């Protein structure tokens, strides 16, 4: 029976805000309901692709679209989607003892063969627990039996999955496009051969990029630091190396992505032009963990764009990467795309632009359809600190770029900065104020007839969070008191009617700092916080700092233990994981940062970070 014909289903939808989050039925959503469930149980794999945040966030994520398309190509696999319910739906389900179900067929999570969680940010961890629990799946991998689904995780923050390790049966490091179908095939084999859960997990421990937490033991020193992490099963490799798609141009891009019926955060078609980054900004985790830099060819992208335009009807096309202006054929690509997008009133959006590489002639072409504001990320207010973080942009370049932008009609400027970076002083914070004033002065000195009428500058700051697999993984995170002081200092300096100042909260930044460099002991903390009410913590309005503070009392030293600076030789909780960049290289970058020495980008010179061993992308001998 069609679930929309059931009064109880309609009553549920009428009880919540934005019911379209839960109904499915979008364009290109896969519907295998009529034939999949008639297949032999042992020959099919039912996979729940889960995103631990609301629908509108999850459906903005390209990885979800990629994996959904890849897995559903196989007739014997049915990949369905499931997102975290908002508070109202969660309450409705809990009050009535109803399970969390998938969008496509309404199947409870506990009935799937495999449940895959996409981990994009640390503050989504409690939503993972909520989804598992609401879905009827035991939280701890060790408590699951043969009837329970295999629960796996993937996504950018799995480079240190240790705080969540006890909740997952398996964790994928790196790119998922090739690894996930291999895991599915292994699962089919498990079902055919009636392997036990344990036998299955041991059998997949050899798949490149796959980490089975239960096959490793963590030893701690008396003070709580990690002493060592070692495999306890011969099938588990001592170090798990991330999975890498070597030829991005051949990697699948969804040509018929699911087009949400309701508005989502990034409501546009997306083409990933680059993966990885050559720049080496020392605070940026993605910049190191996605190395080496790989490109898609212009031909592939133009061909894909044509299909996406035909198949989606979106009003905007985003060229996605960590640094889009680094794409080697950007001008040619944009000039090839504009004749496709302009007649259909499609706005071409290029996020992640670098100030030093920005070509205004190109920008003017793009802005013919809709002129958005310009966004730049200097990250730090002084040259000294920009050298420390290896953000190689000079003040002169910024002022020149701003002048060109103003003369070309732009009048909205958004600037991103970080507060609390290693070695930061009051002078550096004041440097942000000085830089913003200089940018405004550029505007003021231009003849009125040569620029727009009114300037609007938005200064957006976030607090620096030391992340694993970056040169700053050894750094100390500043305290909430220090955060407050820096923020006040900046707010006082930025008082100007043309400037608006936005920031993130101290407590959530501190928690992210704790979780991102955390160890397995934090699993109990995450569970305690969730049990006492923490949920959807990335949402400012839902974040409850006191719950986390209480839960962190389970750890001697609390949050301070995790936000502290690390000893040079200290064993990290992620020491058994390998993203390609060597510890020695990161250590040398950490040392150079303290001396304010910069490192050239991979375009200029190979710094032998370790990723050259992948022999892929930009690394020597592979691309000219």
């Amino acid at each position, binding site marked *: 029976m069609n679930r*929309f014909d059931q009064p109880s289903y309609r009553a549920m939808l*009428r009880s919540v805000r934005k019911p*379209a989050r839960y*109904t*499915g*039925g979008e*364009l290109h959503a896969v519907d295998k309901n009529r034939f999949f469930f008639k297949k032999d149980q042992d020959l099919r794999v039912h996979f729940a692709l889960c995103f631990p945040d609301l629908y509108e966030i999850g459906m903005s994520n390209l990885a979800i679209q990629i994996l959904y398309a890849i897995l559903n190509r196989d007739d014997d696999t049915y990949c369905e989607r499931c997102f975290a319910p908002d508070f109202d739906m969660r309450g409705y389900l809990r009050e009535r003892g109803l399970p969390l179900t998938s969008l496509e067929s309404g199947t409870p999570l506990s009935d799937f063969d495999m449940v895959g969680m996409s981990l994009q940010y640390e503050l989504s961890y409690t939503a993972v627990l909520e989804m598992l629990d609401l879905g009827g799946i035991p939280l701890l991998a060790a408590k699951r039996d043969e009837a329970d689904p295999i629960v796996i995780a993937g996504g950018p923050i799995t480079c240190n999955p240790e705080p969540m390790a006890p909740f997952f049966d398996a964790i994928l490091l790196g790119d998922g496009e090739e690894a996930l179908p291999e895991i599915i095939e292994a699962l089919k084999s498990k079902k055919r051969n009636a392997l036990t859960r344990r036998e299955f997990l041991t059998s997949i421990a050899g798949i490149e990029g796959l980490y089975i937490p239960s096959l490793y033991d963590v030893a701690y020193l008396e003070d709580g630091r990690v002493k060592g992490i070692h495999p306890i099963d011969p099938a588990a490799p001592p170090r798990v190396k991330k999975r890498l798609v070597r030829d991005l141009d051949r990697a699948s891009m969804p040509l018929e992505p699911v087009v949400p019926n309701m508005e989502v955060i990034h409501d546009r078609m997306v083409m990933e032009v680059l993966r990885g980054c050559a720049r080496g900004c020392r605070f940026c985790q993605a910049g190191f963990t996605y190395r080496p830099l790989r490109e898609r060819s212009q031909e592939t992208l133009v061909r894909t764009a044509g299909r996406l335009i035909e198949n989606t*009807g979106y*009003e905007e096309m985003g060229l996605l990467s960590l640094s889009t202006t680094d794409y080697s054929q950007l001008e040619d690509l944009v000039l090839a795309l504009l004749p496709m997008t302009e007649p259909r*009133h499609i706005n071409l959006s290029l996020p992640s632009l670098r100030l030093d590489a920005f070509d205004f002639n190109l920008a003017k072409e793009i802005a013919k359809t809709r002129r958005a504001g310009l966004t730049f990320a200097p990250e730090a207010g002084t040259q000294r600190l920009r050298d420390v973080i290896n953000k190689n942009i000079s003040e002169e370049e910024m002022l020149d770029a701003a002048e060109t932008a103003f003369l070309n009609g732009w009048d909205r400027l958004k600037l991103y900065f970080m507060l609390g970076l290693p070695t930061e002083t009051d002078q550096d914070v004041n440097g942000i104020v000085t830089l913003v004033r200089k940018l405004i002065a550029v505007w003021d000195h231009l003849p009125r007839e040569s620029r727009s009428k009114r300037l609007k500058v938005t200064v957006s700051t976030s607090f620096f969070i030391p992340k694993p697999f970056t040169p700053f993984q050894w750094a100390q995170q500043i305290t909430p008191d220090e955060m407050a002081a820096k923020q006040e200092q900046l707010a006082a300096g930025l008082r100007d009617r043309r400037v608006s100042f936005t920031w993130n909260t101290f407590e959530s930044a501190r928690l992210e700092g704790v979780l991102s460099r955390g160890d397995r002991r934090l699993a109990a903390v995450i569970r305690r916080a969730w049990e006492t009410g923490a949920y959807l913590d990335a949402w400012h309005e839902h974040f409850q700092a006191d719950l986390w503070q209480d839960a962190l009392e389970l750890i001697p030293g609390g949050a301070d233990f995790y936000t502290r600076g690390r000893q040079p030789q200290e064993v990290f909780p992620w020491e058994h994981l390998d993203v390609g960049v060597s510890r020695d290289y990161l250590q040398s970058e950490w040392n150079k940062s303290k001396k304010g020495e910069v490192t050239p980008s991979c375009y200029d010179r190979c710094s032998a970070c370790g990723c050259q061993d992948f022999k892929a992308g930009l690394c020597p001998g592979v691309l000219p």
Partner: protein
Amino acid sequence: MMKRRILLFYERRDAAAWLAHLDMMRLFERSLSRADWPLSWTVDAFNPRPEIVFGLPAGVGIETRKDPLEVRLAPEGQLFEPDAALLRLNLSFPAGVRVTGWQETDSGSPSLMARVRAAQYRLEAEGIGSAFSRTFAGGPVEVVQERKKRRIPVDLATRVFSSQVLGENCLSLMGGAGSTGHLRIDLLLEALVLYGGLRREAAQGASVVRLAVFLDGHGAGQGIIT
């Protein structure tokens, strides 16, 4: 050159019935784009949009069977043939949405929204027949409508033009629609709970189908559309 106006009638079912009005607008914009209809665009340079007008926004949870919306075609649309384009359009919708017919509107005709007068509904819920009979027994049926933080008393009896109880669990009615005297179905269900003894759970689980929207007879000799 005058822009051609094409009046379309659409139905929405299942998941599509749970979309908010802005989502429906976006859904049609994208579907028409995919189907390559030569739409006219507003001249607003900052945020241009295709010219699409819905006759009567459908509330969340209301299925439709013959709701009107109108599109304006760009000047190059003079030779546009809607019959063939309709097939293309119906292939481009997500599941549950379909255009069932079209008419050309006189270019001088009033706007579509201004022409909406009434709507026909079929409601199904456990006990809705007797709840309706008890509630609409001849006297006024007052409920409070909240609008822009104001609480406005409304007599629903004046907004129900005709009705037929089709059984204990089914009801058909015609009510006012459009800018004046609009019958809101959520308020009607609330009244049936308050005055007719309809269980709240039954009201929440009700099936609401808008069978038709009635327009006034201005222009093109179309008369009332049923």
